[in-house]
């Protein structure tokens, strides 16, 4: 199975801390509401819909997983692209 992952944020739980943006500014960005959102490219538009999913470039996979592990709101979900299984975040085992 490939290691490719996608990431999404449960904005209802986001604390606005910004730790994820320190880990991977290419993937995470603050919206005007102070909550974090995901994007697919470093200079791309952030996906402003709540819970939107973005593909994570291979080179940033570990950073994104660290962001999910350290997130104070515990609201970043990292899922395997192939089968949707959560590998980091509140629903990972």
């Amino acid at each position, binding site marked *: 199975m490939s290691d490719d992952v996608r990431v999404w944020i449960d904005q209802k739980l986001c604390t606005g801390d910004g730790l*994820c943006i*320190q880990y991977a500014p290419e993937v995470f960005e603050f919206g005007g509401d102070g909550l974090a959102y995901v994007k697919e490219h470093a200079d791309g538009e952030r996906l402003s819909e709540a819970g939107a999913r973005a593909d994570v470039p291979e080179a940033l996979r570990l950073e994104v997983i660290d962001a999910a592990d350290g997130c104070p709101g515990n609201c970043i979900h990292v899922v395997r692209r192939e089968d949707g299984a959560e590998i980091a975040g509140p629903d990972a085992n």
Partner: protein
Amino acid sequence: MSVSIESQPRLTGQTPWFEGDVPAEAVPEKYRLDRAYVPKGRYLDPEFLKLELEKVFTRTWLVACREEELPGVGNYVEYEIGSHSVIVVRESRTAVSAYYNACRHRGTRLAKGRGRVGSLICPFHGWRWNLDGSIRLVLDREEFVPRTDEDLGLVRVRAETWGGFVFITMDPNAMPLLEYLDPIPRIFEPFQYQNMRIRWQKGVILPCNWKTALDGFLEAYHVAGTHPQLFRFDKSNTNIASLAELENRVWSPTTTYERHAHYSSIGQKKNTSADAGKDPTARGTNDVVDPRLSVALSVQYIADDMRGLENDRSWRAAQALKTAEVPEGMNAGEYMLQLYRELSVAEGYDWPEIPAEKWADAGTAWNVFPNTILLPNQGSSFMYRARPNGDDPDSCVFEIFSLDQVPVADYGRKRDHQPEFFEDFRDADLGEVFTQDLMNAKEVTVGMHSPSFDGHRLSEDQEMTIYNHHRVADRYLWSE
């Protein structure tokens, strides 16, 4: 940055004095230094500790942490000194900043220990700051008297780096770090501290004054008395040294600069002179006829017992030396260094040959005023740091950092780091040599409290590092 060159060092054999020192009359009699003499009140009086905390620790540059402890943006380390807490944080890929660790609302400490955050969030009412210290969020801000963002921003503590160490000072008018450290950055340049990383870090509580903890590492005059096994073939024999062994004791004269000082272990007292310098090829084990074995055993004992200063490569080089054919015109110590260099280069380390005069300038161990000691060495080093423990002059927090140079390919690699802490040093698994040193802490303290004892009577040859600390401290203690 331009660095002013310090006045010439004071060499061994005299009590140091430098232009600009505080005159004796300016110092209260009970704390007054005399020739090679330090009164005990400077260690035992709570009032003196209070003065140190007010006047020395707030005005000097202090090692807060290593840069590798702050690998990513948002990583922070809390540094506590006296009743103050300072937070050191990586603000961006290229900048490390420090702030007083206190909320602008009602003062609450913002962050403890170490960790990684996206912003600093007060645990009490949730005010928030960006990593650059600017205020990001005040709940119900309209209910407060109008205040500027500047007034609500975190208050900076100066932070500067040298050799991979992050230093802070609470004095906004302190001289720049490199000037303060002079001549250390110049003399330490060959040893590449910026390319070292922490192998291990252990902190312990010691039942002694913070300066007593450091004094035990600021001279090697104690080696014959405290570490009798160091030069023995049988390292498990820790019986007190025989008179014949004392005959062969090493001699370690001290050199003092305007602010910092060091000692140099330069060989046996009976065969050496004051103008000899530290020579890394001159080491060995008494009563071992084969000089290869003599050198190798010394290296391997330090590597195995202290787990620092030496490392796995020097251990292997020493192993190879035991049976090696030492080339014509070289002694075993020189060949040891060559084998170590060859291994290091082959394994990807930047390993220039360091000329003898640079080793001699560097000596063995430096007091980085006020509360740090560094042992200059190629490849691996120790740093010791001591801080007062609360307001008890008879208790301190003492830490050992074992540092290793890393291969060139790993300069950019992030590493996990977890310091260890022990209430009792006997639980810290520090090895025989450190344990012997730390056992002295309590004994010195108990004895100093005796009414019969008035102060330290120091060797003008081998203990002026200790005197020098007090001489420099006087400049901070008794001036405005």
